[in-house]
């Protein structure tokens, strides 16, 4: 465990010693703000319309109409940003030769992979933490329910973890950061849009495609529902990706 923490600590230090952490967290903050502002104006207008009774919904719910969509919008940003975080994780170590230090130290492959994953997850949590400002602001002017918000954050953490673990795996396959970034982005995008064709397919295919969709599983979390289906999906996604990463690091030794 202390080995895992040592690696995670080193990874985090690496993010904050280079511009990466500041750029990722900074731009995420700007984008969050923009999304939040747009949704807030939209919510405001809906509320007016609901109040005047002409059209639109009869009553508006700040959780359903503002916070839920905010999470879904933020998940779009993740699709772009997280591959940029993970693309360097292994590629950089291979390029600079520091992988030799890690692989010849008394560490197991599992400890190295877990350490790197936790390091990236903490950076992501910091980035997600920015949105607490926006959500917190709503508590000062309204009275949103906190439970769907908590589950929403849980969902975001799980989905981000899935993105990161997959990116980590792709990074372990190559020493070229651009290649790692592009492949991660493309595959995650595939997981994103895989259910777009679902409505045109047969029942079984439709069910499979919907289940595969990485963002489809986030919806319920933002509504305050913690469904084990979704938990199992994200956790098994993460576990499988990390397992593949460990195998990939191991096979690297054999291939030389």
């Amino acid at each position, binding site marked *: 465990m202390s080995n895992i923490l040592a690696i995670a600590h080193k990874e985090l*230090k*690496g993010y904050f*010693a280079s511009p990466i952490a500041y750029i990722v967290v900074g731009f995420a903050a700007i984008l969050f703000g923009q999304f939040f502002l747009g949704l807030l104006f939209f919510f405001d207008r809906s509320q007016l319309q609901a109040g005047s009774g002409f059209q639109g919904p009869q009553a508006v719910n700040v959780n359903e109409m503002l916070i839920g969509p905010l999470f879904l919008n933020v998940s779009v940003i993740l699709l772009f940003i997280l591959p940029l975080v993970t693309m360097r994780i292994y590629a950089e170590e291979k390029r600079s030769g520091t992988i030799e230090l890690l692989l*010849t130290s008394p560490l*197991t492959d599992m400890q190295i992979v877990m350490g790197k994953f936790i390091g990236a997850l903490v950076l992501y949590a910091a980035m997600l933490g920015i949105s607490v400002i926006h959500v917190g602001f709503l508590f000062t002017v309204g009275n949103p329910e906190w439970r769907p918000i908590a589950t929403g954050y849980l969902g975001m953490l799980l989905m981000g973890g899935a993105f990161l673990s997959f990116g980590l795996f792709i990074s372990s396959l190559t020493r070229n950061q651009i290649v790692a970034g592009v492949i991660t982005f493309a595959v995650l995008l595939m997981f994103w849009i895989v259910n777009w064709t679902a409505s045109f397919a047969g029942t079984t295919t439709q069910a499979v495609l919907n289940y595969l969709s990485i963002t489809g599983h986030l919806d319920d979390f933002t509504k305050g529902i913690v469904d084990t289906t979704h938990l199992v999906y994200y956790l098994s996604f993460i576990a499988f990706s990390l397992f593949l990463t460990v195998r990939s690091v191991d096979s690297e030794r054999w291939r*030389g």
Partner: protein
Amino acid sequence: MIEVQHLTKRYGPTTAVDDVSFTVERGEILGFLGPNGAGKTTTMRVLTGYMPPSEGKAIVAGYDVMEQPIEAKRRTGYLPETPPLYPDMTIREYLTFVARIKGVPRAQRKARIDSLMERTRIVDLAHRQCGKLSKGYRQRVGLAQAMMQNPEVLILDEPTAGLDPKQIIETRQLVKELGGDHTVILSTHILPEVSQTCHRVVIINKGRVVAVDTPDNLTARVRGSETMFVQVDAGGADVKTALQAIPGVTQVTGGDAPGTVASFEVNSETGHDVRRDLAATIVRQGWGLLEMRPLRMSLEEIFLHLTTEEAAHE
């Protein structure tokens, strides 16, 4: 301390290391000598557990590097050809990280790092970023890294490559000091380094061990025959024939230069000391014996000799 048995490593169709076996005793400094691409780095990478062998096995400090990698790695320090530094970390941060992953107990970390920085003379640079260090300092930080957990075995891949002469002398001195307490394998393609620092030499070429011996024995072994250099003032007389007549002499070369003073190289059978006969013959003829000295083959020549001979066999 280190036992390598029939080690073979293939990368696809190419064989980088081919059936290499050798042992290193506790406290010994072993030189690993060979041209670039001979398989030195690959062998070292197998010993450090960085990569598994295709065949054969390696036992380091009593642990099979494949069966019990963690135990073996705990007892091994490794300095790769390029010191594995994180450019964004300062030297102290880097060494602290290394101490953590090498399992140096928290209470001892600071003292250990301080003493290593002292020993490798990098104390003044503790807060300098690793990415901004010169080659010589990178190498020193790399050495400090390798020595971190005071390992029984140290494996140093070209520790003096790219250093200036003063740094090379310092590094060799440090390595010499390490022998005795530690078992050291160091690779190099610079020959004087081997004779100056190592107790024993493994010469490797094209993945095969060509010779294992002490630097002195290697010299003697390769020489096969002994060679004397002789300079004679004979006033143009036929010295060559006279020398060739001496029992034990196998070949006489040289003496072609014009003038009264002629130089010769006299080969003789091993173990047959012809110096007395040479001197007596020359003096008896009334010639002047100006110089006579044994010609020892330098390691450099041995190396060329061994590796080119190996190529000729194939």
